[in-house]
């Protein structure tokens, strides 16, 4: 007999991934992933999305290709990833060594009333990523595996995909700035220095 499989707390998981972030550049997907990254500590090297659903991984790909010597992570939810599944094929074809795509998979659309996503009905994002040709860790359900991911995403040794199974409960919202022009200016300055 097996009981329900363990899941991680989303805030603890993201805080662990970002605690020793080094040079890591982060693009966060709209909704809870953006709040989780802000809750872990606001940083100008976080580019928070408040919209553009489905575009998080593709945006991170462009960033990774522009900054090949720095680790880049897309941190997003299962709803956003499912909307942009095609971007996994694009990323697989491009294979940037410095890009990690990390999904916080609670199997629901948390912002809109916890309607189940396709992952609640058996769709495996890990299998999708592998089918595209991206190296993917097994579904992450414990802090040890999360520690391995945190180390791997710093190494820039190949495109990496990770799906973290998280609890569906909501946390208090931690809202970062949502003025996109401000977010992009401070990000550019943090990455490229002051200038036009």
């Amino acid at each position, binding site marked *: 007999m097996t009981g329900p499989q363990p899941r991680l707390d989303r805030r603890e998981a993201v805080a662990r991934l970002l605690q020793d972030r080094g040079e890591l*550049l982060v*693009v966060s997907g709209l909704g809870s992933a953006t709040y989780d990254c802000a809750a872990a500590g606001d940083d100008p090297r976080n*580019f928070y*999305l*408040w*919209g*553009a*659903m*489905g*575009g*998080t991984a*593709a*945006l*991170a*790909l*462009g*960033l*990774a*290709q*522009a*900054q090949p010597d720095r680790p880049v992570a897309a941190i997003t939810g299962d709803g956003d990833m499912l909307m*942009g599944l*095609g*971007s996994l*094929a*694009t990323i697989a*074809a*491009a294979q940037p060594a410095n890009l990690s795509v990390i999904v916080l998979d609670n199997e629901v659309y948390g912002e809109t009333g916890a309607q189940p996503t396709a992952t609640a009905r058996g769709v495996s994002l890990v299998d999708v990523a592998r089918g595209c040709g991206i190296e993917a860790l097994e579904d992450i359900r414990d802090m040890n595996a999360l520690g391995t991911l945190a180390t791997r995403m710093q190494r820039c040794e190949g495109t990496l995909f990770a799906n973290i199974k998280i609890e569906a409960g909501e946390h208090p919202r931690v809202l970062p700035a949502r003025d*996109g*022009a401000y*977010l*992009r200016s401070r*990000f*550019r300055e943090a*990455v*490229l220095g002051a200038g036009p």
Partner: protein
Amino acid sequence: MSDTVIRPDAATPDWADALYDVLVQQNIRQVAYVPDAGHARLIERCEDNPDMTATVLTTEEDGVALLAGAWLGGDRGILLMQSSGVGNCVNMFTLIENCRLPLVTLITMRGEWGEFNPWQAQMGQATPDILTRMGVQAHRVDDPDDAAPTLDAAIRQSFDGMLASAVLLSQRLIGRKAFTEEG
């Protein structure tokens, strides 16, 4: 039963090489595309340039997001697509206006000049209005000699002025897509 064979009229037009030269002169580093026969020559030249990263997309809106990331990381980029792809981009264009990001897209027009395929007509006709409504300035090119100067101007105003610009290459310019029936 007959098979319909699609052949572009012009394989290596001079204007495509002139557009490529503009991309090189303007230091365009990332080229994201969903192919069109009218872009074939330009895509080929970009793929062959080791200083450019050419990314083939599964859908056009990913290119809007990708180029936003490219610019955040210091790279200038361009999105190549046909007019049908503009509809796919609509929600992603909000990223560009909200974050006041530069964007340049080069669009080959369908559905407007001797078009064989009626399924291209709606997006061909709606493309300039959709772009304008979403905050993207549209510059149409009918004369092949205007293609390179128009792209050059669009790139300058996008990256110097933080604007979104589209250059529309008319279907008459790129050459009507030839469909022939073979039995």
